[in-house]
């Protein structure tokens, strides 16, 4: 029989199995204290509702769990390992003090229904971050209830609808530029609006003539990302707002790109009526592999009556409390008060920065994006030469001639030790390569990145097949996504 060594590989490369494959009856990673009340007979209490068997849940020890998840973790790329230039995602440093303060006992163990008298700390945090975010955005009122950016969009559009409804006509359409995030049209549909596409002009900005032609009394709102998804600031922003307002419409700003604006300009000052923020982008709360996020929605006074309930108020005695009596409110969008743990982290970030730190952060984010643009211009096609703010969008036009597309270039970037940029978005740029370095990158890290991108461009010329087969250094090579979708295997089963 041939002898096989089953381990003896570097841990990042080894084949850590599924946890179920390590299970055996009788192993345990838990221990309960002795029961200080009488034991009960579950059958007698629950009758036919008693559960007998928990199926294939694993039985493993603590050390196995630690090793299992630690090994899995080594297969992930992360900001802590290096530059993560995903455009539109703002992968900035996640400060560790945020994590420490979020775990303080009184905050981590606070129950959402504990009496207001015993909740003043949590309420003070909500009030303080609300005040900070209002000052940062230049808006009048805010809700922190939405759990993520898309949830904020939903909340914002519900308020827009309620506003129009209160005027007698909810209107029918939402205008959305062709460069917008997919969440924008998906949200409009959830609120019962039809979506009308707005074409961008040659500079990648809103085409004012097209907007003027398309704006009428059927349009409820324009959803605009500013800077837009090309990283371009919409210079005509106030004219855009005026066009909307002249016909009774509103201007919604998707705040996904707020990292380009904080401390430098305020959406409330340039005509925005309603906007959401992503605390997990601009305000440094960790992405955690896809969440949790938090999507506060800030509005102008005209929309304040429609905020989700409850809202936090200062009572006559100076204490804070929740107000539920809000007859025009759109209602609740989530149970309790939103992703409170994210408010703590975002506030810790704001306090660590102060006004000077936030401004410097924005300046560095824009400086970094422009440095990368300068470094890669000429090597990669720059479809829009309009000035960049916090991110820059190249295309694979030059490399595509050799049959190498944006996703292939991205996969090769992995071999150089970087996370790929955002591929194939925005949709108005065929073969888009969207790069957002954020302020968290040093000159040295960016130089490495630029060097890597240039080197890949050379490889495309010399050996396109090698690039097409990338990545070469990861534990698994490119995975068969078609097979995964055609015959979905969405769970482990014994004997698999």
């Amino acid at each position, binding site marked *: 029989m041939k002898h096989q060594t089953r381990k003896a590989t570097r841990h990042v490369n080894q084949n850590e199995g599924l946890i*179920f494959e390590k299970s055996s009856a009788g192993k*345990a990673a838990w221990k309960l204290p002795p*029961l200080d009340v009488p034991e009960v007979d579950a059958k007698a*209490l629950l009758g036919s509702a*008693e*559960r007998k068997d*928990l199926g294939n*849940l694993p039985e*493993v020890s603590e050390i196995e769990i*630690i090793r299992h998840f*630690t090994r899995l973790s080594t*297969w992930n790329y*992360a900001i802590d390992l290096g530059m993560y230039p995903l455009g539109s995602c703002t992968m900035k440093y996640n400060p560790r003090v945020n*994590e420490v303060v979020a775990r*303080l*006992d009184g*905050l981590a*163990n*606070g129950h959402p*229904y504990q*009496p207001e008298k*015993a909740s*003043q*700390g*949590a309420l003070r*945090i909500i009030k303080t971050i609300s005040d900070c975010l209002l000052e940062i955005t230049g808006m009048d009122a805010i809700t922190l209830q939405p759990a993520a950016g898309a949830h904020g969009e*939903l909340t914002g559009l519900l308020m827009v609808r309620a506003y129009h409804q209160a005027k007698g006509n*909810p209107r029918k359409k939402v205008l959305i530029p062709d460069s917008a995030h*997919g*969440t924008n*049209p*998906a949200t*409009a549909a*959830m609120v019962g609006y039809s979506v009308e596409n707005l074409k961008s002009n040659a500079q990648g900005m809103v085409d004012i003539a097209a907007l003027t032609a398309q704006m009428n009394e059927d349009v409820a709102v324009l959803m605009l990302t500013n800077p837009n998804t090309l990283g371009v600031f919409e210079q005509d922003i106030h004219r855009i707002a005026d066009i909307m307002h002249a016909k009774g419409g509103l201007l919604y700003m998707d705040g996904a790109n707020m990292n380009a604006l904080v401390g430098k300009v*305020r959406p409330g*000052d340039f005509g925005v009526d309603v906007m959401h923020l992503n605390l997990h982008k601009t305000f440094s709360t960790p*992405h*955690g*592999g896809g*969440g*949790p996020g938090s999507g506060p929605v800030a509005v102008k006074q005209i929309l304040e009556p429609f905020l989700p309930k409850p809202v936090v108020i200062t009572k006559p005695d100076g204490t804070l409390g929740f107000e539920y009596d809000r007859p025009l409110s759109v209602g609740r969008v*989530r*149970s309790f008060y939103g992703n409170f743990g994210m408010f703590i982290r975002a506030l810790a970030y704001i306090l*660590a920065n*102060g*006004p*000077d730190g936030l401004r410097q952060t924005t300046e560095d984010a*824009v400086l970094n994006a*422009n440095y990368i643009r*300068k470094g890669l211009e000429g090597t990669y096609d720059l479809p829009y030469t309009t000035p960049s703010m916090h991110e820059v969008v190249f295309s694979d036009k030059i490399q595509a001639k050799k049959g190498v597309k944006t996703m292939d270039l991205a996969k090769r970037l*992995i071999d150089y030790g970087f996370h790929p940029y955002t591929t194939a978005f925005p949709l108005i740029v065929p073969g888009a390569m969207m790069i957002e370095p954020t302020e*968290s*990158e040093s*000159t040295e890290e960016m130089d490495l990145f630029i060097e890597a991108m240039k080197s890949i461009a050379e490889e495309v010329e010399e050996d396109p097949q090698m690039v097409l087969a990338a990545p070469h250094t990861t534990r*698994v090579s490119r995975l*068969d996504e078609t097979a995964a979708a055609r015959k*979905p295997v*969405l*769970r*482990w089963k014994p004997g698999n």
Partner: protein
Amino acid sequence: MRYLPKSPADRQALLKAIGARSIDDLFAPIPAEYRLNRDLKIPRQMAESEILDWFRERSRENGDGYATFLGAGAYYHYRPVIIDSLISRGEFLTAYTPYQAEISQGTLQSIFEFQTMICELTGMEVANASMYDGSTAAAEGVMMAARLTGRRSVVIARSVHPEYREVLQTYAWHQGMPLAIAPFGKDGRVDLKALEQSITQDTACVLIQSPNFFGTIEDVNAIAEIAHQHGAMLVVSIAEAVSLGIVEPPRKADIIAMEAQSFGVPLGFGGPYCGVIATKEQFVRQMPGRLVGQTTDRNGKRGFVLTLATREQHIRREKATSNICTNQALVALMVNIFMTIYGKVGLKELAKQNLAKAAYAAQQFAKHGKILFEGAPRFNEFVVETSEDPYAINSRILGHKIVGGLPLKKFYPELGNAALWCCTELTTRTAIDTAVGFVADSERSVKSAKEEDAQEVAR
């Protein structure tokens, strides 16, 4: 600023490389009249030690160290320490959504394990990871049922968490989705007759919660039968996940919308939590949220990818099954680690302790106050009716660093002086006895006041 990796000289060098004279050049696209030429009016930059002090003060103002009898959709369970050790690894904490599968296998495999365990626990065939919370999962579950049945209205049990009902109302508002409410009977469970009457040809689904808001376990099979007889689906919300260790899951449901907070997620004043939708395989293409599937790489090696993305907003835009993008991934990882720690045996033992504590407490309270909704099985919550306003009793208990049960009149005015009490494995017998003592005192003083009144009248 200590998070920024640049010296003033670095910044000058970068500006020079770009060909800009000053940083202002880069902000020139912003029309001058809107540029902010002053400091933001927010607190000044603080040292780390000051930030810690500020939040410690807030923590002290927030009931730090209080025992609690509150449940009602947010449960105080023990969190094994390795959950935080593991989720604090930067590779989990600071990673993005696993779109680039080759360098996200850690997150992807962990989600695949999560999906598997949720299926095992709920008796469903597929599960996503994740929705924002139990309330939005329930609302999305209902909209999924509407897409699947092509029907437009919903029947919701009044015994579903009141805030979940409010969220559904908000979501349904502009979907043109009429909502009907099914009342609860004397045992606190859905009134089956009334339920049947409220279902019409247009009912897409019935939404119930089990254990329901009062802690009572619904007769899921009977409700499923009624719903299915009328061509409607059954959506079951589970707010207390630990119940799955000892309570039979709603296997007859078509869609389960869960809140998994009880599995290792801190109370955190209401969030972040972890919603989950689980369903039958045949409905998977109408499911919202992210799914991880198993596949192979070019060398035939097992690996995992995000799959069935054509349901999602970044592909389908306005035709997507939901607008959800960012979800609760790191919280789902907490849940996953918790399920792995307790596993097949531990989860059952944990649930049994909850059952025992609540049974003991209900028994003690019954000696003085009245337990409502007797006659139906309960898990770890129960409703106590007192003669005195429960807010008044609670404010006396609070003096002893104990938070009493949730007064229900805010949500159910018809229940008068009733309060919802919850006991978990962390509730001590001493705390139970202390709280029961306050209720006993309250009943005695109400009784003696009544007797004094009677004597007064007699005189």
